[in-house]
């Protein structure tokens, strides 16, 4: 009798595991999530359903809001302001726009590319499509980007970081104010469910990254210092 109970208990456990698997399928069940990379743990399709419903798995939110410490490399090179992939580095009007595309699985805290003083924190976009939004539509084929632009004056010139998100998400936090002195690699803000960060540099700046490269905020040198020839 004891053996029968043990056997049935084991079979019930296996059945519960299978029901759990079937309940979450095609997405991974909680049993296997821990062994998967974030991209497979929370597939994009699943995240988009959460976006519609406004409900998210707590583990995903913990991952999304993670804010690990970063160690800036020595020197005066310009650092990546965000985690993600370099999607373009076009020059327009004497400014080089280094565009970094963020995925759902990237860390979403942005960091200062250089030390200096915050000249301004400007907000653009919002409930309506303004001129700035239209102008920057080329960045990721967005018709109505909402963004904030943080301009930093360094000893050798001026750089700016644009935090861009869609009209649907429309949530950007900036943690620096005009007049603040900030360090290289310091946290400057966060885009909630955001997708693009643009670093504006003088057109003459020598880049250290190319399109398709993966960069990490506050750690990857993306350009030589502004004083470099």
């Amino acid at each position, binding site marked *: 009798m004891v053996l*029968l109970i043990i056997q*049935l208990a*084991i*079979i019930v456990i296996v059945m519960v*595991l*299978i029901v759990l698997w079937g309940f979450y399928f095609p997405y991974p069940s909680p*049993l296997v999530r821990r062994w998967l990379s974030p991209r*497979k743990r929370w597939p994009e399709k699943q995240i988009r359903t959460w976006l519609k419903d406004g409900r998210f798995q707590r583990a995903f939110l913990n991952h999304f809001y993670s804010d690990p410490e970063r160690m800036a490399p020595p020197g005066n090179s310009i650092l990546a302001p965000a985690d993600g992939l370099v999607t373009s580095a076009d020059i327009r009007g004497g400014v080089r726009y280094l565009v970094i595309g963020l995925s759902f699985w990237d860390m979403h805290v942005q960091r200062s590319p250089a030390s200096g003083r915050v000249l301004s924190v400007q907000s653009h976009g919002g409930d309506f499509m303004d001129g700035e939004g239209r102008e920057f539509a080329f960045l990721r084929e967005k018709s109505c980007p909402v963004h904030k632009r943080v301009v930093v004056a360094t000893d050798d010139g001026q750089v700016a970081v644009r935090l861009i998100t869609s009209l649907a998400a429309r949530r950007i936090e900036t943690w620096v104010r005009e007049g603040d002195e900030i360090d290289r690699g310091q946290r400057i803000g966060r885009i909630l469910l955001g997708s693009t960060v643009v670093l504006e540099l003088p057109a003459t700046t020598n880049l250290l990254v190319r399109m398709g490269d993966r960069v990490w905020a506050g750690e990857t040198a993306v350009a030589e210092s502004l004083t470099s020839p």
Partner: protein
Amino acid sequence: MNGFLWTFGHLGWGIFAVLVFSGLWLLLSDLCWRLLAICIGRLLALLAIGWMLGIGCIVFGFYMAG
């Protein structure tokens, strides 16, 4: 199949092993599908072969032990 399905007041070890093995194999298959970058047809074939080998081993072991 004497003793395979039922024996001395509890499930036969044969059917018990088949049920547990099949359930765990299904879960393992799901994990492999998610972890490995492999053509789905090939993966299914490999998993089916693995399952048949496992069941074969269980049945063979059961009769050898008996």
